[in-house]
Every structure is written in structure tokens, then in C-alpha cells.
């Protein structure tokens, strides 16, 4: 080779291939590749090509040096291969479906109790959820990419067995709507608490907001309902994870449903939900006077009916699951 200040295309190509290889095999691969390329270029020149064109064509035929280096080193050209992909997808799905609802519930509650306004709560929570989802996905993917490259990537982490088959017809009994329902109660309560000071319907003579809820509720019932609704959220997550109803879940469902419905109906019937000052303002507005009384009866009946149905529904579905239907 003649001494040149700029390396030839061939030398640059060989350097690009071997820099990806272990130190001890670099010189060997480089020497062999140099001879193979020289042979190829010679053959193409003999076929009538100009030397520069022959060199270009020979390099193009060998293709991307990183791809060739991966061939030599035996490293995969994918992040997560077919053996691990399903493990990766399942783990990520489970993690996201647990972490995101819990994070959302916790954040909304914390921000509402801290007195943030509703817009801030929604935007702040959404922003945090996006970063949590991205972070979680990144780290799970990173761990799997490392496993793929440690030699354990040629078989699934969890071996499949016939026992892993879903029961019955394979259709999960429970969909993602259960999670939505679980978060909804907490979100609605927090939204109501936040809205009654942030966007008051009425203001008193000093311009301070007249809250919708009875002030006495704060001593016990508001914390009580937060706890019950949080329990309902946990319940819905467990139910979603299992994908099927069971007797235990049906009983838990009845306890939680009654724990929220019975006190709520009692409070509505005893007229202890709505702030009297709010009712008084409402009474001043024309045409809405009697709506309060009739409305509370209708609401109590509706809540009772929905609660009863939820209890029965859980028992029916648990029975169906037990029969394998």
C-alpha cells in the first residue's frame, strides 16, 4: 500500500467494521476483509470497471459496515427478539395498568386537598402520567434489551404451560371499563370538592363562595367517602388484574358498595348533604324551590337501585365464572 494522507474508502470501511468487534479479533478480520475486498475489486476491474467505480461497487455489495460487524460479532440486530417480546408486552401492560391509575388517583387527591384549581389538577396530573408512562416503558425496555444481549434472549423468561390458558371461552369477563369506573368515583368527588370553591354557583354578600356541600360533612363524611372511594379504586384494580369475578370479589364488592350507598342515602334523606346557605340561595332563585326536595328523593332511590344492581351483578358474574361460562 502506498503512503497516503487520507485513507482509501476500503480502509475507512474496514475500520468502520472492526471498531465494533472485540479487540482480539480486529486485526484478523481486518486482514481477511482487506484481501476479500481486493479480490472483489480486482475482479470488477478486470470486467472493465474503472478502479474507483469497482471499489464503490464492492463496498456497496458488502453493505452497511455495522450490519457486517453484527454478523461477525453475532449480536442481534433487534432491540427485543421474538422469544422475549411477549414477556416484555405482558409485563409492561400489567405495570402500566397498575401504576397509572394509582398515580392518577393519588395525584388528583393530593392536588385537590392542596387546593389547586381544577384546570391545574387535570393538566398537572396528565403531564405526570405521561412522564411516568414514558419512564416505566423506557426502563422495562432497557432491562429486556440487556437480557436479549446476555444470551438469555433465545427463549421466553416464563415458559408457557396449558395451565396458563384463560378459563372458559378465553374472553376476559372484565374489561378496562372497570378501571374507569374505579377511578370515576374518586375523580367526581374531588372535582365536586374543587369546583364548589373554584367555580361557585353562588357567592355570599362578601363575595365569598357559598359551597354546595354541607360544612358539617368535612368533620367525618368527606374523609370517609375519600377512603371508601379509594378502596373501590383498589378493588377495581384487583378485579381488572384477575379478569374474572370470584365469590370473594363479589362479597368485597357488596361491602364496598353498601359502605358508600347506605351512608349516602341516609345523608340525602336526612337533608344533610346540601349546605343550607346554598339551599337558601337556591330557594331565592325562581322555579327551583321544590326541585331540592323532590330531587333528593329521586336521587336516593336512584342510588339505592344502582347499588342493589351492582351487588347482584357481582354475585351473578361470580356464579358464571365458577361454572366456567
Amino acid at each position, binding site marked *: 500500500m502506498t503512503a497516503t494522507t487520507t485513507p482509501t474508502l476500503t480502509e475507512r470501511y474496514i475500520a468502520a467494521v472492526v471498531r465494533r468487534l472485540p479487540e482480539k479479533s480486529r486485526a*484478523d*478480520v481486518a*486482514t*481477511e*476483509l482487506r*484481501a*476479500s475486498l*481486493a*479480490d*472483489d475489486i480486482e*475482479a470488477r476491474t478486470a470486467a472493465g470497471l474503472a478502479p474507483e467505480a469497482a471499489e464503490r461497487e464492492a463496498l456497496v*455489495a*458488502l*453493505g452497511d459496515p455495522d*450490519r*457486517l460487524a453484527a*454478523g*461477525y460479532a*453475532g449480536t*442481534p*440486530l433487534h432491540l427485543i*427478539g421474538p422469544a422475549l417480546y411477549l414477556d416484555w408486552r405482558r409485563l409492561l401492560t400489567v405495570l402500566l395498568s397498575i401504576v397509572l391509575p394509582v398515580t392518577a388517583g393519588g395525584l388528583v387527591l393530593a392536588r385537590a386537598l392542596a387546593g389547586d384549581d381544577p384546570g391545574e389538577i387535570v393538566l398537572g396530573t396528565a403531564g405526570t402520567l405521561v412522564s411516568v408512562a414514558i419512564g416505566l416503558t423506557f426502563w422495562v425496555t432497557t432491562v429486556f434489551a440487556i437480557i436479549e444481549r446476555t444470551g438469555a434472549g433465545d427463549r421466553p423468561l416464563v415458559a408457557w404451560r396449558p395451565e396458563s390458558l384463560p378459563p372458559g371461552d378465553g374472553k376476559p369477563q372484565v374489561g378496562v371499563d372497570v378501571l374507569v369506573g374505579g377511578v370515576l368515583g374518586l375523580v367526581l368527588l374531588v372535582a365536586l370538592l374543587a369546583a364548589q370553591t373554584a367555580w361557585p354557583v353562588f357567592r355570599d354578600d362578601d363575595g365569598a363562595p357559598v359551597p354546595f356541600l354541607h360544612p358539617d360533612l368535612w368533620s367525618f363524611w368527606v374523609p370517609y367517602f375519600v377512603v371508601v372511594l379509594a378502596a373501590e379504586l383498589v378493588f377495581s384494580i384487583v378485579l381488572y388484574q384477575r379478569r374474572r369475578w370470584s365469590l370473594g370479589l363479589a362479597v368485597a364488592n357488596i361491602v364496598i358498595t353498601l359502605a358508600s350507598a347506605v351512608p349516602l342515602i341516609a345523608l340525602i334523606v336526612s337533608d344533610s348533604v346540601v349546605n343550607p346557605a346554598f339551599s337558601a340561595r337556591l330557594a331565592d332563585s325562581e322555579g327551583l324551590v321544590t326541585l331540592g326536595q323532590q330531587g333528593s328523593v329521586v336521587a336516593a332511590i336512584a342510588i339505592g337501585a344502582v347499588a342493589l344492581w351492582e351487588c347482584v351483578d357481582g354475585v351473578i358474574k361470580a356464579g358464571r365464572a365458577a361454572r366456567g361460562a
Partner: protein
Amino acid sequence: MPLTIVCDTQYCVDMSPTDEPALDAGHLQELRRGTVVLASLLALREPGYGYALLEHLERAGVDVEANTLYPLLRRLEGQGLLSSEWNTDESRPRKFYRTSPQGEALAERLLAEHRRLTDALERLAAEGA
């Protein structure tokens, strides 16, 4: 000019210059997969270096890309199926590969399996005729 290169985790097989529809190409590639190892083990019973083997296989009717064959030779060497020796007598130092006894034994088993499959396919083809 090779038109399509279809890859799996093992190696790439050149799906060259026919005008088969894409569907045919995929199935043919599946069928040809694996024959490059056998062809190399058989051809290298006489020692040969990378570029010469490439031409040898091409003349014999086994199409394979250089960027598949070169790493494959090193992998087979690592598995003890090929032995190698540097020849520095000529102007260009060349790495000569030769099928090891272990490689010859594997080639025999692969060839027997290939014949068995060919016979089976021939019988199936005759049944329908």
C-alpha cells in the same frame, strides 16, 4: 444484480434475479435457508479463502451474499466445523478455511437429512400425480 436480501437471525440468502412474485420469493427463501452451511462445509473439503469460496458456490449454483458468507465462515470456525490457516506466500495474505473432521461428519448428517427430505417430497409429489 441481487434484488432482495431476506434475513433471519442465522444468515441472509440471496433471492436474486428471477421475476418470481413476492409470495414465491418468501417461500423459496424458506426452502433455501440452511443450505449455505451445508454447501460451504462440502466445498471447503478442499481448502479455500472467502472470495474464492463465494465464486465457487456461485458457479455451483448456490447464491449467497458476501456479507452473509464471510461472518458465517468465522461462526463455523468458532464452532470447530472449519479450521483455518493464514497463507502469506502470495502478495495478499489470505485466510484459508478447511472443513474439520467434525465439520465433515456434520456435512454427512446434513446431506443425509437433505436427501431424506428430497425423497419424501418426491414420494409426495408422485402420490398426487
